[in-house]
């Protein structure tokens, strides 16, 4: 504690020291005077022999306590004082830093929460997604999820693998919960044995599913999500053991999962056991997501090899029914490509976030350049002060440290203000962020973000302090004491640092504007793409599912759907309505199957390409605004008569028969037992997977088709999206009437996914619009900072060259000449910046190729337009100072000396 007392008794210590030294000097002077020297001479002589009093006092102080700490304290006090002396500089610099830091901290918190933080499961690094691809399965090859697992694969993998601790499959869906206040459609996740064990999150109440729950036709059980438990049961622990009715089947609640628990990237309300029936297993049924936990020490490569080894075992263990060849899947070339679970969750958003982080980082660089500029100007005006300090014995390190402490302090204050802004920024980002951004609910400003912000602040403080510090700490400053600063004009060399900064700023701003420009072009290109439906804001969509347990008979399901359509069409203001198994871009799991054409030959043991298929009601095309390219739509008469008719997409018709009209009258089927269906209509291509993806080939079956497997005559499509064309779409009153219309047909049918197609569309382009907004913000900030930079440098140059300009005027120069001189200087800087920027952009925009659509990363139009814009703005920024230069009065300027 001794050093602490010393730290605080510093004042007394210093006073005593001064007194002691003064006494020493006095005594010496007296002695010299006694020897006959004059008092003045004695004083001078005493001082000379004593040495530099200030320096010695400092040395004495340094003996005590921590000299460097004390010096830094002093530097901080001094810095604060000099900042308050120039409030305009302080405010401008602080705001620049604060905004830059805020933007960086906000984006970093997103990057950190989404990309860097481990998933919310114990030992999350062991978790993997059992991703696999099947390049030989045409149609499925470009499918984002690759080839999902089939139940039989799950059995083979989970029983015979050597690299996993546990393994399971799961699938999302919806279910109707009835028997409580009003029927509700809820999100479900159905899990096989092994999924909960793999994720390893203990339940908040009750227990996990056990093997007993996975027995087919065994006890029906269900687990609740925390949110559903709170919402429906008020968090009552006694619900464990009670029954709820899920899709008309009573299920016993066995447990509740804790708050924040999700299945990989899926929120859910209920989870149910899959309870596969081993006896009915076939090879096919590739609809399940696989998840596993690696054994400690096992690598992904080993696990891939393990599963590759098991694929032939799988083909030998199961079949697709008598007479089928199980080894036809060899042609699919199924290849396990296991990924870390985190990568599966993050998906393609990682790249986007890094691009945004990079651009925001560039903005920070530009901001630093601006502050450096401000500091340089300030250091120039402070030359005298610095020179005085040097003359008084301050060493070079001391001065450098002083300037750095001042700039770091500035940066930290800016950082604190910026962190405050960042809280608002994060909320903003979460609002405008793509609503399908993974882990959105996990985004917070945590310790790591604060640490990042602090380091960023200190580093930028050092960065923008270093140039002025090195430039003005040199010994040559002594000349400024003698007023050597009064040269006629300012030497080129003194401007070099500032000019470089301006060039750098312009170049960086150009890169950012270029990327923003490319995103604008991408967005414009997307707007021109026909999604396959028209006027989406007046197109209401909603999902209705009719479970087997509610209406068992097939035709009655379709009749009920038909009745709902009629009730909906009768609502005031409804122009038309229809239903389909899935509208484009809705993002539900789609159905694929092999499609055979009657007039094509297929070699034995080969499978035709897999095609996406949908079921569509009469009237849907008209309601959605989807064009019929050739032929006609099916009628309700044909639907109920089980007439074998089908429609296909235009690209499928072209691929198989050359032209849309040639397809009419041709016949298709899914599998050998199915009757041939005649193509009666060809439908325009729709952007099923999103605006940026190519339109897949699609087969459109009727909503009721001949059932070739089951005991019934026909099988209906039970879960469909209804679309209603009305100017009132999306309004509350309209939805109330829609609900009433549906319930008038069957009061047990809940509505789900109620939204307009505009919302579906917006979500599909959310990634692009988010990138656009972020790059737009970054580009605008860069442009503004760049303008301020150029303007600042040019104004300062003009004020420094006042005398020179005065002389030019005195010698007969015209205003125009002076204007040209200043403009030429500014243009030169901007031009160099633009050229460097173009080169940099050429290299960097390639990184965002995957975010672009309908435009190349080196789009000449964008490059030219952005370069021209930047040059124009730069000229404007020069024009104002140049204009001021022409107003210099030579007499005033020269008398100023």
């Amino acid at each position: 504690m001794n050093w602490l007392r010393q730290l605080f008794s510093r004042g007394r210590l210093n006073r005593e020291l001064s007194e002691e030294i003064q006494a020493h000097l006095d005594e010496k002077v007296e002695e010299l005077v006694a020897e006959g020297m004059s008092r003045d001479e004695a004083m001078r002589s005493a001082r000379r022999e004593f040495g530099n009093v200030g320096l010695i006092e400092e040395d004495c102080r340094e003996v005590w306590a921590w000299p460097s700490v004390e010096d830094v304290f002093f530097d901080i006090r001094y810095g604060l004082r000099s900042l308050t002396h120039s409030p305009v500089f302080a405010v401008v610099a602080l705001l620049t830093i604060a905004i830059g830091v805020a933007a960086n901290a906000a984006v970093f918190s997103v990057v950190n929460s989404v990309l860097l933080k481990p998933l919310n499961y114990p030992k999350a690094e062991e978790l993997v997604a059992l991703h696999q691809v099947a390049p030989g399965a045409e149609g499925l090859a470009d499918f984002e999820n690759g080839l999902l697992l089939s139940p039989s694969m799950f059995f083979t993998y989970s029983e015979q693998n050597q690299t996993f601790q546990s393994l399971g499959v799961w699938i999302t869906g919806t279910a109707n919960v009835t028997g409580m206040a009003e029927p509700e459609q809820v999100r479900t996740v159905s899990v096989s044995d092994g999924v909960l064990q793999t994720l390893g999150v203990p339940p908040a109440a009750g227990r996990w599913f056990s093997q007993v729950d996975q027995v087919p036709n065994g006890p029906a059980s269900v687990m609740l999500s925390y949110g559903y438990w709170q919402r429906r049961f008020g968090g009552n622990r006694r619900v464990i053991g009670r029954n709820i009715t899920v899709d008309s089947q009573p299920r016993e609640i066995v447990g509740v999962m804790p708050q924040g628990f999700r299945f990989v990237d899926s929120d859910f309300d209920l989870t149910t056991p899959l309870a596969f029936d081993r006896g009915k297993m076939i090879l096919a049924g590739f609809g399940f997501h696989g998840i596993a936990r690696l054994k400690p020490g096992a690598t992904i490569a080993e696990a891939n090899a393990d599963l590759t080894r098991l694929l032939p075992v799988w083909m030998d263990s199961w079949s697709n029914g008598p007479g089928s060849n199980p080894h036809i899947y060899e042609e699919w070339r199924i290849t396990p490509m296991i990924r870390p679970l985190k990568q599966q969750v993050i998906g393609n958003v990682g790249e986007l976030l890094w691009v945004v982080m990079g651009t925001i980082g560039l903005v920070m660089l530009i901001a630093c350049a601006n502050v450096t500029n401000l500091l340089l100007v300030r250091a120039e005006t402070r030359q005298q002060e610095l020179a005085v300090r040097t003359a008084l014995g301050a060493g070079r390190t001391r001065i450098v440290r002083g300037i750095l402490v001042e700039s770091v302090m500035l940066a930290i204050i800016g950082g604190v203000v910026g962190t405050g802004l960042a809280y608002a920024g994060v909320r903003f980002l979460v609002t405008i962020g793509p609503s399908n951004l993974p882990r959105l609910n996990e985004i917070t400003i945590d310790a790591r973000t604060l640490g990042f912000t602090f380091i960023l602040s200190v580093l930028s403080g050092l960065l923008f302090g270093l140039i002025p510090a090195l430039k003005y700490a040199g010994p040559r400053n002594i000349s400024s004491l003698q007023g050597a600063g009064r040269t006629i004009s300012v030497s080129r060399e003194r401007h070099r640092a500032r000019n470089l900064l301006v060039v750098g700023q312009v170049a960086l701003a150009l890169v950012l504007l270029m990327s923003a420009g490319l995103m604008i072009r991408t967005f414009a290109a997307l707007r021109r793409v026909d999604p396959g439906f028209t006027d989406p804001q007046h197109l209401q969509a909603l999902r209705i599912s009719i479970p087997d347990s509610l209406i068992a008979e097939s035709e009655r399901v379709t009749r009920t759907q038909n009745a709902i359509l009629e009730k909906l069409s009768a609502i005031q203001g409804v122009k038309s309505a229809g239903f389909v198994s899935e509208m484009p871009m809705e993002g539900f799991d789609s159905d694929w199957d092999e499609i055979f054409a009657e007039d094509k030959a297929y070699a034995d043991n080969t499978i035709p390409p897999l095609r996406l298929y949908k079921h569509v009601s009469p009237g849907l095309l008209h309601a959605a605004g989807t064009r019929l390219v050739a032929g006609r739509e099916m009628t309700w008469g044909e639907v109920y008569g089980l007439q074998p008719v089908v429609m296909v997409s235009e690209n499928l018709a072209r691929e198989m028969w050359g032209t849309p009209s040639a397809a009419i009258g041709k016949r298709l089927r899914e599998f050998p037992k199915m009757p041939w269906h005649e193509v009666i209509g060809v439908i325009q291509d729709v952007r099923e997977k999103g605006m940026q993806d190519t339109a897949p080939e699609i087969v459109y079956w009727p909503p009721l088709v001949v059932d070739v497997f089951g005991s019934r005559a026909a099988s209906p499509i039970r879960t469909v999206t209804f679309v209603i064309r009305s100017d009132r779409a999306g309004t509350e009153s309209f939805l109330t009437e829609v609900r009433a219309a549906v319930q008038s047909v069957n009061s047990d049918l809940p509505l789900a996914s109620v939204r307009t197609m505009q919302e579906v569309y917006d979500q599909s382009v959310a990634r692009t619009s988010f990138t656009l907004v972020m790059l737009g913000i970054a580009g605008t900030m860069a442009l503004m900072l760049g303008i301020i930079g150029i303007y600042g440098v040019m104004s300062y140059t003009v004020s420094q060259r006042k005398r020179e300009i005065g002389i030019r005027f005195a010698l007969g120069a015209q205003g125009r000449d002076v204007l040209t001189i200043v403009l030429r200087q500014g243009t030169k800087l901007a031009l160099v910046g633009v050229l460097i920027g173009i080169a940099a952009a050429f290299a960097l925009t390639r990184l965002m190729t995957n975010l672009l659509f309908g435009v190349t990363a080196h789009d000449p139009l964008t490059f030219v337009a952005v370069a021209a814009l930047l040059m124009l703005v730069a000229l404007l920024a020069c024009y104002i100072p140049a204009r001021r230069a022409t107003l210099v009065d030579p007499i005033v300027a020269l008398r100023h000396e």
Partner: protein
Amino acid sequence: MHGYALVQQIKRTSNDVLQIEEGSLYPALQRLLKEGFVKAEWGISSTNRRVRIYKLTTAGGKHLEREVSSFERMLKGITQVLAPGEL
């Protein structure tokens, strides 16, 4: 003894051979104070001035003895090396 007197003493006893910058005495004194080898008290000098008077502490005395003996050993060594042609 106080600072000024110390300087005079050094100059006098070394017959002005050791010329030191007078001020540099003070940082040295502060270091000794910090190590606890000397202690300081305010008193009155012979010229009737308020001065700080430094006294050697016991620890300081021991340290001095050690330093002096090690210095003497070194000096002896140097002298022997420099002593001409005894071989």
